[in-house]
């Protein structure tokens, strides 16, 4: 079991309130991602759940039981840190065994679980090495192994992939997702990378300045961002935001349209501009377009190869049904 509930949780460091009153429920077995720009309080929130920091007020429940004042060691949660935080003086085997040693699990059972975790994580050959002798990806797997063996009610991941290079990151992302499918244990995952959030999450919690901006499935957030912040944060390249006369036409203060929802049309179109930079990726072409009279720059994603270069005039037609409308407060107009 691993249902985690936050009720009116707040956190202040001295005078500074980093988490204003916050309510959130994470269902058992769910893969929840906390995402937001750096300094949004996502790591703090995770550390509050872990018990590494005290909450200033409110209640944290784990499976319905009040865990607010329970020390981290007793919460039955496992955490994977950004720096992996492996014990450098212990072998991989001892690292993985450590939480079981603390829990007083007998030696035979320890060995069984270590073998099992090592096999699952491709670590069998490295069990007698020290963390210092492993690559970044292997260290990450050891950290995960150490979390798995104690069979926690939930896993907490604090930006676990940010120290890996781009190629490894994609691989580890898949491994963690597969791990979740296999174990079906609650996982809370903190990242600033919206691609990780979109690809891994069952539920995304978008945070800004300690506030929850929106909670929903990746596609909810993509299709129906509740405000301009979420609209701009989720999706890559970023959604184009247009104010002024063009927005007025749609009875909105601001309208948003994703780059992939604007078509490049030959001869004429709703909007016209000049190509600033064209990024030819082969599969897609990204245009950064100036002088549209709408915004300083528009980004458009065209499938395949479109042969337009810097300085060329470009005609654009937005898909009307994909336009998001926002009011003056930045909130979505349904």
């Amino acid at each position, binding site marked *: 079991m691993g249902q985690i509930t936050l009720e009116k949780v707040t956190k202040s460091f001295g005078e500074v309130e980093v988490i204003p009153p916050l309510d959130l429920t994470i269902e058992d077995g769910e893969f929840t991602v906390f995402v937001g720009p750096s300094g949004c309080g996502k790591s703090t929130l995770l550390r509050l759940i*872990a*018990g*590494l920091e005290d909450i200033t007020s409110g209640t944290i429940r784990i499976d319905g039981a009040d865990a607010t004042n329970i*020390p*981290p*060691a*007793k919460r039955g*949660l*496992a*955490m994977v*840190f*950004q*720096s992996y*935080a*492996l*014990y*450098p*003086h*212990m072998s991989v085997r001892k690292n993985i065994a*450590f*939480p079981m040693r*603390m*829990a007083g699990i007998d030696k035979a059972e320890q060995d069984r679980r270590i073998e099992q975790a090592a096999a699952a994580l491709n670590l069998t050959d490295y069990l007698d090495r020290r963390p210092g002798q492993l690559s970044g990806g292997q260290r990450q797997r050891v950290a995960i192994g*150490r979390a798995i063996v*104690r069979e926690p009610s939930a896993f*907490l991941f604090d930006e676990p992939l940010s120290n890996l290079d781009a190629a490894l990151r994609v691989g580890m992302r898949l491994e963690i997702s597969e791990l979740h499918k296999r174990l079906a244990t609650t996982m809370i995952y903190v990242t600033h990378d919206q691609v990780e959030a979109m690809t891994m999450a069952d539920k995304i919690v978008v945070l800004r300045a300690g506030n929850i901006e929106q909670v929903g499935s990746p596609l909810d957030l993509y299709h129906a961002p509740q405000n301009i912040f979420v609209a701009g944060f989720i999706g890559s390249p970023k959604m184009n935001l247009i104010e002024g006369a063009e927005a007025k036409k749609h009875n909105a203060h601001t309208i948003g349209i994703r780059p992939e929802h604007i078509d490049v049309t030959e001869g004429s179109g709703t909007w016209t501009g000049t190509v600033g930079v064209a990024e030819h990726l082969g599969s897609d072409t990204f245009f950064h377009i100036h002088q549209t009279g709408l915004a300083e720059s528009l980004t458009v994603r065209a499938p395949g190869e479109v042969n337009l270069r810097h300085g060329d005039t470009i005609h654009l037609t937005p898909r009307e049904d994909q336009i998001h409308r926002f009011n003056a407060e930045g909130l979505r107009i349904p």
Partner: protein
Amino acid sequence: MARAVTQKRKMINTALAWTIGLLIFFPILWTILTSFKTEATAIADPPVFLFFDWTLENYSVVQERSNYMQFLWNSIIIAGGSTILGVIIAVPAAWSMAFVPSRRTKDILLWMLSTKMLPAVGVLYPIYLLFIELGLLDTRVGLTVVLMLINLPIIVWMLYTYFREIPGEILEAARMDGAGLREEILYVLTPMAVPGIASTLLLNFILAWNEAFWTLNLTAAKAAPLTAFIASYSSPEGLFYAKLSAASTMAIAPILILGWFSQKQLVRGLTFGAVK
């Protein structure tokens, strides 16, 4: 500096440095050499440097006459005891300051440093009086406690600077893995800090071994360590250079060897991390 240097320059550097090095080391070398001479050779005119009949006689005489072993034993107990006791008290304190810093941490550290600067002579009589009252005068326990107290600030500081280099996330990981405070310090922090703790032990052992104010003023016969043993040679008693040298050599040899291992830590320990 990884720079190309001509062989000639390197040779000049070497010659110069070795000359100065040997000059500085000479008093120690001379003492060691003299300790193997007879008293007559020791004051020969002109002095004899290397070519004499080497003898170990002085060492046995020193041991017989002044019971060197007892002083040595006192030194080991007092220096070792005060250092170990200091580290046991300092490890938890340094943990607190390094990993749970508060606004007052810096002030506490500096205040500890300031107690180290208290001139001993300013509190000599009160300590003397307290020692008499408590029956601690000329006891190893009393001296161990005093030396522990005068070195405690250095021990806390050294451990603090070593602990600060250990990432806090690892200790948090231990907490998440179910370790209590005791386990966290015993199984995770201490093993990781072994090099730092060893250096701290070593340097403070040396400092305690060489301490020569309290050891001279608070001991008489029973608890006197080597510093007092040597001081007892300050009144000349005839031909005694060779024996003085033998006694000196025995008093400094163990610590010279330990000292050579602790050069690097010396800087850190004695400058309170201000020079790295």
